[in-house]
């Protein structure tokens, strides 16, 4: 595991966000180093996914700043944000596949739209990523024919097909059986180590953070209240960490 001592690539500075009367983030600050895998843990509905959405500019903070690779996402131009996002991958909770496109077309979509690669090269890359998530032979299936876990893995293949520098995983294990879930955890770990991908993983599974994370932050009431390596985390004597880990999530 890395020590996380490198250069910061994602930084949240006192980010606050409310949706109507519901305050989700209250001065959230965190930092992710280049090549590091940060896991964000916390109970359901406390803004873990909203944090990820801030990091890709899908949501703007009410106050505070989100800095990604020296770009302030509140002031970045639309064109620069588009270019920045081309270096990112994002796994949505439910996969977010385009329903009228086949599995292969879904995975190929960012390559078809944003590159000039030949069809054969795109097909090759798509097949490679589908194999990576253990979905060989599914190129022509349509999303309604897939189980929830398969959709998620297609979403993961799509997130990885452009070989991004930064990948955001929103609950990568939800809906997967334990075996596939563990293989996805190892895939995330392997990608991070082999390709030096920076990752943020939102999860509530301790089994996930033990495999994938270099560092863990525990979020509650809209801010980070505990931080450390996975080992430090599970050995923590902090009452709130102990209480969180005692809940039967895993």
């Amino acid at each position, binding site marked *: 595991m890395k020590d996380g001592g490198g250069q910061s690539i994602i930084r949240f500075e006192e980010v606050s966000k409310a949706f109507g009367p519901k305050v989700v983030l209250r001065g959230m600050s965190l930092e992710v180093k280049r090549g590091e895998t940060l896991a964000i843990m916390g109970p359901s509905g406390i803004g873990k996914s909203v944090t990820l959405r801030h990091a890709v500019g899908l949501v703007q903070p009410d106050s505070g700043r989100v800095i990604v690779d020296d770009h302030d996402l509140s002031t970045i131009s639309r064109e620069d944000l588009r270019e920045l996002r081309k270096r*990112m991958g994002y796994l949505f909770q439910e996969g977010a596949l385009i*329903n009228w496109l086949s599995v292969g077309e879904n995975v190929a979509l960012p390559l078809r739209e944003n590159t000039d690669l030949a069809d054969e090269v795109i097909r090759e890359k798509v097949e490679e990523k589908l194999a990576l998530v253990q979905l060989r032979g599914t190129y022509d299936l349509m999303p309604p024919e897939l189980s929830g876990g398969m959709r998620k893995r297609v979403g993961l293949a799509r997130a990885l097909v452009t070989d991004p520098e930064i990948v955001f995983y929103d609950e990568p294990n939800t809906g997967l059986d334990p075996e596939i879930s563990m293989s996805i955890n190892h895939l995330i770990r392997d990608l991070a180590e082999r390709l030096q991908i920076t990752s943020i993983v939102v999860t509530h599974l301790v089994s996930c953070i033990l495999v994938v994370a270099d560092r863990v932050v525990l979020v509650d009431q809209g801010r980070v209240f505990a931080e450390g390596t996975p080992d430090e985390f599970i050995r923590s004597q902090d009452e709130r960490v102990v209480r969180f880990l005692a809940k039967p999530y895993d």
Partner: protein
Amino acid sequence: MAFLEILNGAFVAAGYRVDLLVQVVGKLGHLPRRRGLVADQFYVGGIKVLHVVLLVGFSIGMVVSLQTGLELSRIGQQDQIGTLVALSMAREMGPFITSTILAAAVGSALAAELGTMAVSEELAALEVLSIDRVSYLVLPRVVALAILCPMLTILCDTVGIIGGGFVARSQLGVGLALYYDTVIDSLQTPSKLFSLPKDVYAGLFKSFVFGIVIAIISCSAGILARGGALGVGNATRSAVRDSIILVIILNYFMTWYFYQQ
């Protein structure tokens, strides 16, 4: 307070629609890349509703012919029934009926489709993938409906006139040759702008505008949908309602523009 919120919401929605239209116009250069998606929309918005347009157009032509024919026959002018049916269909009934069918059948489907994409995070996924959703989703739908609506209007006008002729002959005793002669005579008024007769191009121009209006309103309703199935239902309802209202209002102003003395 609630009234002000509704008013504010209406202004925001109107602003979003205008902005969407401007963006679509700005991305017309992307059309060659999107020809496949436009063709898909032709199938969804054209072929799938063709039978409805033909059936309703034929029936409306019959009704117009019967209603006006009965009145004309009282004053001995039933020979002019072809003129009335042709002008009614070309100027008003064809464009209005076609756009109403498209709003109900295609606009609702567009709003539901994009609304479902919005609530299931597919639109967010497109954004994160750096795919321009206006170019990828909205442009093909607007272009397809802008072309389809006039094409379907021509068919609606034609079958309406045929339906009117059927009634003229069977119910009013007007010969088909006379009926079609009066139809053709009535559609000869030359226009200043195009080689098409004025009544035909005015109706087709209206249809072109209606097609754009339906597509923009339906797409914006879908994109702005929030809150699961309920939100998609609301988006679909507002798409059809707002499309038909705007079609009726614009119809008046365009009729006034084309036919003012």
